[in-house]
């Protein structure tokens, strides 16, 4: 999309700080360039938290709108990525809570949750793996939003505890507690025998 009259196109080498300053001054193009760097990753996070693609698309638009509306107040106390991810987690939680109040609560689609292929491509391993994948998808979908967010940020996204806690908006101790609770629930739902025989 070409920049509107009076707005210059972002230089590919332009720094995040410079783009942020321009976005805070009202430059939509700079905001898109700044946030666009994280758009794919943010959308994947929303897919993992929400499951449903069309809902993730809707929430992603809302996240960007919220970020645009709040960018003038962004003080740089965290990284821009952390700030944007925090908005995404809040919006996803809001959407999940809204869905939970509806009679037929949808869950994360297990079809989206895939484990890496076995190097050996052993058919029996694939079958067991597929079973574990379904069980994991179901167990994650049953978690309350705060616990699901903890396990997705830390274990699936691979963020550090410090960064994940900051995004979740809680202390590191509280985040660890949520993560351990989430793991205990998923472990209980799947069963040790299944995990040991197919997940190792």
């Amino acid at each position: 999309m070409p920049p509107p009259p009076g707005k210059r196109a972002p230089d590919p080498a332009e720094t995040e700080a410079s783009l942020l300053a321009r976005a805070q001054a009202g430059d939509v193009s700079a905001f898109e360039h700044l946030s666009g760097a994280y758009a794919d990753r943010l959308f994947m996070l929303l897919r993992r938290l929400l499951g449903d693609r069309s809902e993730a698309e809707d929430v992603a638009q809302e996240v960007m709108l919220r970020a645009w509306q709040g960018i003038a107040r962004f003080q740089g106390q965290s990284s821009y990525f952390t700030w944007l991810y925090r908005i995404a987690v809040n919006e996803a939680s809001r959407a999940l809570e809204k869905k939970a109040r509806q009679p037929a609560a949808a869950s994360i689609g297990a079809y989206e949750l895939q484990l890496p292929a076995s190097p050996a491509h052993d058919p029996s391993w694939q079958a067991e793996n597929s079973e574990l994948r379904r069980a994991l998808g179901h167990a994650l979908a049953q978690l309350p939003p705060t616990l699901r967010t903890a396990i997705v940020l830390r274990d699936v996204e691979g963020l550090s505890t410090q960064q994940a806690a900051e995004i979740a908006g809680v202390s590191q101790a509280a985040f660890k507690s949520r993560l351990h609770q989430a793991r205990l629930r998923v472990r209980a739902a799947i069963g040790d025998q299944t995990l040991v025989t197919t997940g190792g």
Partner: protein
Amino acid sequence: MGMPGRVDDHQWSQQHLSHYVEGELRPRARRRLDRHARECVDCGRGIRAMRALVHAVQGLDGIAGVRAPATIFDRVRLAGAGGSPSSQNT
């Protein structure tokens, strides 16, 4: 974390398997769980299960490589036409 030798070792160990796998237990607590797990089949399997769980969840990459939709900035563009972000309500 509880102190070694106090309360029920098995119940305590089961509650701390995730901390153990994460490497978050203090040395004394880690030794307590190690000692118990050597004698307890359930807790030994629990450690392996928790490690397998973390490994499996880390491998949930089925949607890796998904691209954000082209419409992701549509609402921003609509709002942006109305003025600078600082002049808008959140």
